[in-house]
């Protein structure tokens, strides 16, 4: 491809290559550091400008220097190049830099192909429905680029400009048509390519961006950050009746240890298996949870989980459902819950100690207050009620923007600022209880959810994250107390967004949330049909036909069969692609006649007239010159002369014609 030849507007493959790369980069950019984004976008901009202005390529040494410098910056940013993000970052950067030297068809092809690879790597991070659109867009662009490059190359030797095709829409429709051709094959591969029960290679546990979900620690602001995130956490499909919204407490990490600032899970709490479980058969709520990957170790369930799903490694003594590996893919499990179950009628000494532990020399004012209350209270339950009433009656506010707290955070919150989010209330309440000698702990998880009527399921978003307390009371065991509900009852009745009554971001409107929640039904269907299609579902693919289990070998055989069928079905269409169907049978037969000649090695083309065709066949073995003369003469007469006789004879002759048949 000559330098000056590439400038021809939309028919310039370079723009398509650049466009494809840009689209392929899109989902990658938000998770990259800003300076890396800049380094990625600069070469793209330079190359586009160079094409528009006709700039010469940069000198080789300069390009080499830029590449090395970029590598240094990349390693400096990520520390190493081993993680998924770092590796994909490397790919993105190098691909963008490759544009600097993309002046020939070969390089353009490499960039377009690797853009497709980059597009494929994005599926490591997300498999949502939007990714299909994204993948299809990349693919269309790349296919159009490939077509343009190929066309240009084919015409490079003729010193003629390549045919321009049918403009933007033509190029796009060409790409989409090719993709449509691949759909049946893709479907067969998706359904039938043998899947393994576990991933082929270990995916590093913390390889995602560690941005989603609850963690094993809580500081002021932890849940607040989640509150801004509207991505789905999980969906629950109830087999039984739906609990009331205020009872939808989805249990997650249970936090025991407080160091004055931060709450953390407990070693024993995480390690010790629960000794009693509610009776699953008696549980009033049975449901299936479809948990989005969140890279942590928790499965979520309503209080109290009665089943230990196969994915969970442990159902702990504080009723956390913990997995061994971080959850990096969509996880579906059956769950049953019994809210009336009594957790730990007797509290073991170890746990009592842990549930009362507090750092010394913090929050003296609260300590004093609690000592007073303790003296006045008749029972633990009384004290709990008093504390809740205190939150309810005093001037406490539920807000997203609480003032910052310093060392004696509980004191400051309780006596001075009185503004906080659920984590402030849960934390403060728990500490107050501990000061009063009542065993207490913080539970984090999700509260509420959006009931989707279309799909009859409850959608829980990250923004539903919540923290509450549990206190141990003699006779009733661990009891859930939600101090936030005492401050802002609408938090549990209608959700945190309603309770706050303020917009979280610019486009945070009620109707928009409703629309999005409604659309989530599609996402769930996608999850259900595509993402959750795993080895187990695959092996029972033919269950409806009575085949219990498909072995890998059967799957491969089926796949081969399906591919064969698809190929057979598409072949005639493929062969006809780009040729319009001729109406007149004579002309159709004539084209077949030309094809037969062509296959026999006669250099005929569709641009040849009948006489030229006759001339071209002269001297070819296996072709009867008289027959050809009769056919071409007949065709010439029929198509171009004024008499219309001999049509039937010509049709017969054309049908009868074969190359190589001894006449």
């Amino acid at each position, binding site marked *: 491809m000559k330098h000056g030849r590439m400038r021809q507007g939309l028919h310039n493959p370079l723009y398509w290559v650049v466009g494809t790369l840009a689209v392929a980069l899109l989902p990658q950019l938000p998770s990259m550091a800003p300076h890396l984004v800049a380094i990625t976008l600069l070469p793209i901009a330079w190359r586009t400008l160079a094409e528009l202005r006709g700039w010469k390529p940069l000198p080789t040494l300069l390009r080499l220097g830029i590449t090395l410098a970029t590598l240094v910056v990349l390693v400096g940013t990520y520390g190493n190049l081993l993680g998924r993000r770092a590796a994909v970052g490397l790919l993105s950067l190098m691909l963008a830099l490759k544009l600097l030297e993309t002046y020939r068809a070969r390089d353009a092809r490499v960039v377009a192909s690797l853009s497709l690879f980059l597009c494929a790597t994005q599926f490591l991070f997300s498999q949502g429905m939007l990714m299909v659109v994204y993948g299809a867009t990349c693919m269309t662009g790349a296919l159009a680029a490939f077509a343009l490059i190929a066309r240009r190359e084919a015409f490079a030797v003729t010193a003629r400009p390549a045919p321009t095709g049918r403009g933007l829409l033509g190029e796009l429709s060409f790409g989409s048509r090719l993709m449509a051709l691949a759909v049946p094959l893709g479907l067969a591969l998706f359904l039938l390519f043998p899947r393994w029960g576990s991933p082929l290679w270990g995916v590093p546990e913390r390889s995602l961006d560690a941005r989603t979900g609850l963690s094993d620690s809580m500081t002021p602001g932890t849940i607040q950050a989640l509150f801004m995130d509207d991505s789905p956490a999980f969906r629950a499909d109830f087999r039984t009746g739906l609990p009331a919204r205020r009872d939808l407490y989805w249990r997650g990490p249970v936090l025991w240890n407080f160091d004055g600032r931060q709450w953390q899970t407990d070693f024993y709490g995480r390690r010790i298996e629960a000794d009693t479980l509610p009776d699953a058969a008696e549980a009033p709520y049975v449901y299936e949870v479809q948990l989005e990957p969140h890279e942590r170790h928790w499965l979520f369930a309503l209080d109290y989980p009665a089943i230990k799903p196969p994915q969970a490694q442990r159902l702990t003594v504080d009723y956390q459902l913990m997995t061994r590996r971080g959850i990096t893919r969509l996880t579906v499990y059956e769950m049953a819950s019994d809210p009336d179950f009594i957790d730990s009628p007797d509290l073991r000494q170890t746990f009592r100690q842990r549930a009362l532990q507090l750092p010394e020399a913090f929050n003296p004012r609260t300590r004093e207050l609690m000592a007073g209350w303790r003296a006045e209270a008749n029972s633990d339950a009384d004290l709990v009620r008093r504390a809740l009433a205190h939150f309810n009656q005093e001037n406490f506010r539920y807000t997203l923007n609480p003032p910052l707290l310093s060392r004696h955070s509980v004191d400051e919150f309780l006596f001075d600022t009185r503004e906080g989010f659920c984590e402030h209330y849960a934390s403060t309440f728990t500490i107050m209880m501990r000061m009063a000698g009542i065993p207490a702990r913080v539970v984090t998880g999700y509260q509420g959810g959006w009931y989707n009527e279309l799909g009859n399921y409850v959608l829980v978003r990250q923004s539903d994250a919540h923290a509450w307390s549990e206190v141990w009371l003699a006779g009733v065991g661990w009891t859930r107390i939600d101090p936030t509900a005492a401050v802002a009852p609408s938090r549990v009745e209608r959700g945190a967004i309603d309770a706050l009554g303020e917009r979280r971001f610019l486009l945070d409107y009620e109707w928009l949330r409703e629309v999005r929640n409604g659309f989530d039904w599609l996402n769930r269907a996608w999850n259900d049909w595509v993402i959750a299609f795993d080895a187990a579902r695959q092996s029972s693919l033919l269950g409806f036909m009575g085949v219990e289990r498909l072995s890998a070998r059967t799957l491969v055989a089926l796949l081969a069969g399906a591919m064969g069928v698809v190929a057979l079905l598409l072949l005639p269409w493929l062969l006809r692609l780009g040729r319009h169907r001729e109406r007149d049978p004579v002309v159709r037969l004539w084209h077949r006649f030309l094809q037969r000649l062509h296959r026999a090695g006669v250099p005929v083309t569709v641009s*040849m007239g009948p006489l030229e065709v006759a001339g071209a066949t002269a001297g070819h073995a296996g072709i009867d010159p008289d027959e050809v003369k009769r056919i071409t003469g007949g065709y010439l007469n029929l198509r171009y002369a004024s008499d219309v006789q001999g049509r039937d004879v010509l049709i017969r002759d054309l049908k009868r014609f074969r190359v190589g048949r001894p006449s």
Partner: protein
Amino acid sequence: MTTAPTTLGVTDSPANSDEARRARLAEAIGTVNGILLGKERQVQLAFSCLLARGHLLIEDLPGVGKTTLAHALATVLGADYQRIQFTSDLMPADILGVSIYRRDKEAFEFHPGPIFADVVLADEVNRATPKTQSALLEAMAEGQVTIEGSTHALPDPFFVIATQNPLDLVGTYPLPDSQLDRFLLSISLGFPDPEVERELLVSEDRSRVLARTAPVLSPRDVLDLQETCAQLHVSDALLAYVQALLAETRNSRWFDIGLSPRAGLALLRCARAHAFLEQRDFVAPEDIKAVFPGLARHRMTVSHGLEASVEDQVDGLLAQVALP
């Protein structure tokens, strides 16, 4: 083909019959081929141009037989033949003629210029000034000459053969596109094949052969033949092909500007004549393809920025357009 009475209403005498005319035409072509050796294609195109009532432009180097061809054509046509050597000081009156005052008659008398001939050879047409060129080209287009208010009809048939040297462009005035359009076909003769050249070297001088060549066709014959050619059948399929070709020439990947509708009409006219020479009573796609390069060559310029010649582009275009 059956002998149909000509439209001119001439009685069907043996010498005037269609068949006899065809025989004479064949003989005329044979004679010209006997003079201009090894150029059958060009001779056929020249006759096509003549029968299609067009004018011929020959672009080639000096000495390859341009004049011989023109002279041979004029001779076999039995026509009045004039040769005008175009130079930069040639004036329109030198071509068209002048009116001179005659004292004895006390009136102006028109002295027709060399253009008043059946066959005119305009040699090196691009050497004359545009003014002179346009005088010739206007006469070609109108079939008449107007001098000082009086109109003088040019003879019919009227056949102009112009030549120009495509390489030696110093001191020339290239013909503008609008005037090139007046020429139906442009051909180039090219160097002869080695065998032909050998024959040329050993055989008698061409001018002497010309000198003893007798006319074969009469101008009347030419008119009749032109009439017959115009009647040839053109099928819908062929029209579709012509349209496809014209449309393709307008695609900017080949040429700057495509062929005009007028050029399309000329293409059909020329193809008809070519088909007639091929002894057909209908036009075949091959006729179109045979005359198309000659028709397109001087009318087109290659798209800007391409290093192809018009001939390459025409060949590519013909190979690209499928027969409908």
